[in-house]
């Protein structure tokens, strides 16, 4: 298994597969080379038509956000679905994430707002935002580790199972997660 890739990114890619799976091969803009193998396992990437019905944008980077969005806009047909995976500030606390998300826009405290604003400015309407690996899930995992240390492996296993149930949220607590999955539709600029 490719253990270098944190679970939440793989989770987000699987979720995208179910969201855009019926729309043909998506255009992919990948700013995290570490995810290439995971993308390939899911059939994302490779040759795609010049105009696609869906697009995947992994880890928007602050200095290239406008260039990336222009490219995506040019490759995505009208009403096409854009799925964005973006690290959030909480990801900086996880030891296995920090080395490859430093310049990601989402990891800045104001990053999510800047990102959604840029998306809207380029003619996209946000449909849904999910937070993946929520603070509640992280907290339950932590409680599980405490339970392990005091010899209650049974309780630890329950906390772990419960943490998986709360791993993804589309409620207000979604912003307190390590990764965001943003689903937006290209609706064109309204003047």
């Amino acid at each position, binding site marked *: 298994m*490719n253990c270098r890739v944190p679970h939440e990114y793989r989770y987000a890619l699987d979720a995208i597969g179910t969201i855009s799976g019926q729309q043909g091969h998506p255009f992919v803009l990948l700013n995290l080379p570490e995810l290439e193998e995971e993308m390939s396992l899911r059939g994302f990437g490779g040759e795609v038509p010049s105009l696609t019905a869906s697009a995947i944008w992994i880890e928007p980077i602050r200095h290239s956000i406008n260039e990336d969005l222009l490219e995506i806009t040019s490759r995505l047909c009208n009403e096409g679905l854009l799925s964005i995976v973006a690290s959030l500030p909480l990801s900086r606390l996880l030891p296995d994430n920090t080395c490859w998300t430093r310049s990601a826009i989402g990891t800045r405290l104001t990053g999510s707002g800047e990102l959604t604003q840029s998306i809207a400015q380029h003619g996209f309407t946000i449909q849904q935002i999910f937070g993946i690996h929520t603070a509640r899930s992280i907290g339950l995992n932590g409680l599980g580790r405490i339970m392990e240390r005091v*010899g209650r492996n049974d309780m630890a296993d329950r906390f772990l199972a419960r943490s998986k149930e709360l791993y993804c949220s589309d409620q207000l607590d979604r912003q307190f997660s390590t990764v965001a999955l943003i689903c937006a539709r290209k609706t064109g600029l309204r003047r």
Partner: protein
Amino acid sequence: MIQQTAPHQRREQIDDPRMANTLATEPDSKLPSSIERRTINLAVARLDAWLETMHGPGGYGGPVCHWWQQCFTYTGAGLDWRYEGIITGYLNLWQRTGESRWRERAIRAGQDLIGGQQSDGTFAFSGFEMNPARMGTPHEAACDVALLRLASALRQDGNESWMMPFNAAGQNIRHVYLERLWDEERQRISDGKPDASFVPNKAATASNALISLATMSGDAELIDRYAIPTINHILDHQIRADSPFDGAIAQNSFGSQQIDKYFPIYIARCIPALLEAWSLTGSERYIDAAVAAMRFIDRWVVDDGSIPTVVYPDGRTSTGPMWIAPLGDILLAFDLISPFETFATHEAVLSRMLNGQDETGGIQTATKFECQSGWKASELPDVRDLLHVAGWCDKAFRYLSRHVSEDPLPSASPSEFVRSATFLRDEYLFRETCERVEITKEDELRYLWVKGEAHPQVAAKEFWIR
């Protein structure tokens, strides 16, 4: 000790590749007295009919539920331990009934694995509950065991294509298990070198694969240098004490730290390797360990044939989920250990597994899955309880295929299965047909997998659960 190949005789077989044909067949063993052969015949015919509905491009697919993780979002072929039970089961049917259709099924399954093998020797989508993923353990070794059984059976039949599965398994074993997972310092097959993790049941499956390859190739080094030292580490993880935990095998270890959780189905999966080690070396300590492991499992069987999924060191247990189809591996262990000791609980466990077969012909996975996270069981089964999973049903299929009569199996076809169910505290309707698995909530379609497709057409957020 009866009807077992004498240890030294078995060791001599390794040095004589002509004897490799013994791999192809699983020996007969007795059924519990109250279970009739025709019941088994029908159950196997129905399982085969259901398995056929699960076979699509590249192999057997479908969603997966497991203790560790769920996989509802990848539903394509999984080249994992499901093939161990499927190929062995079809070879058993071929051997027992002489019907060539079972050989064709086994060959097709072998072609799935060979077709999915990557240039580095790994199998695509071998992660089972972690799919899509590669380098799944013990899954790749289980595939190797299956391929080597197929190769042996084909060679015995005079079919020259036996080299294909033989070479595929050999490539995987050498490139994955010997080059990547062999821990020279600790002298064992690890579960990943960086953290020096060791998982006895996975090491057992890898040892089975090594011994199978040695049996076919005559390369005894695979046994002496790799398999037996690895199996010795399994013994190091076993409790031997005058206590109810005697025979229990710890789930895993990191370095010198053992994780003291005891999973009966995984302990059962260690038993074939322990018996192989006894057969190869003649050392009684392996047979003692295997019998003790089986006695430990037996102590935890409840009257209804259910077994806790986990037993913790303080005697607490996890009874959510409690397996049904996966019990096939425990029943197989009962079979294998029967020349040395028989267990009265065998019958109850078999009845529980057979009772889990429903209209689809598949066998349900478990009961009380929703209790895993601490919730009390509701009156309805969890969606994951009802789910029929190729990588669990194969275990039932393999066990049952050992017990069919020599008559042709009866004809069977799957029927529609509909049940109310619960999932994450909400109520759903679960429906499976030959063509699809669909789950609705208040008439809203929340999950739809069209059989044969690599992803569900519909998967609402709750089914992204891992």
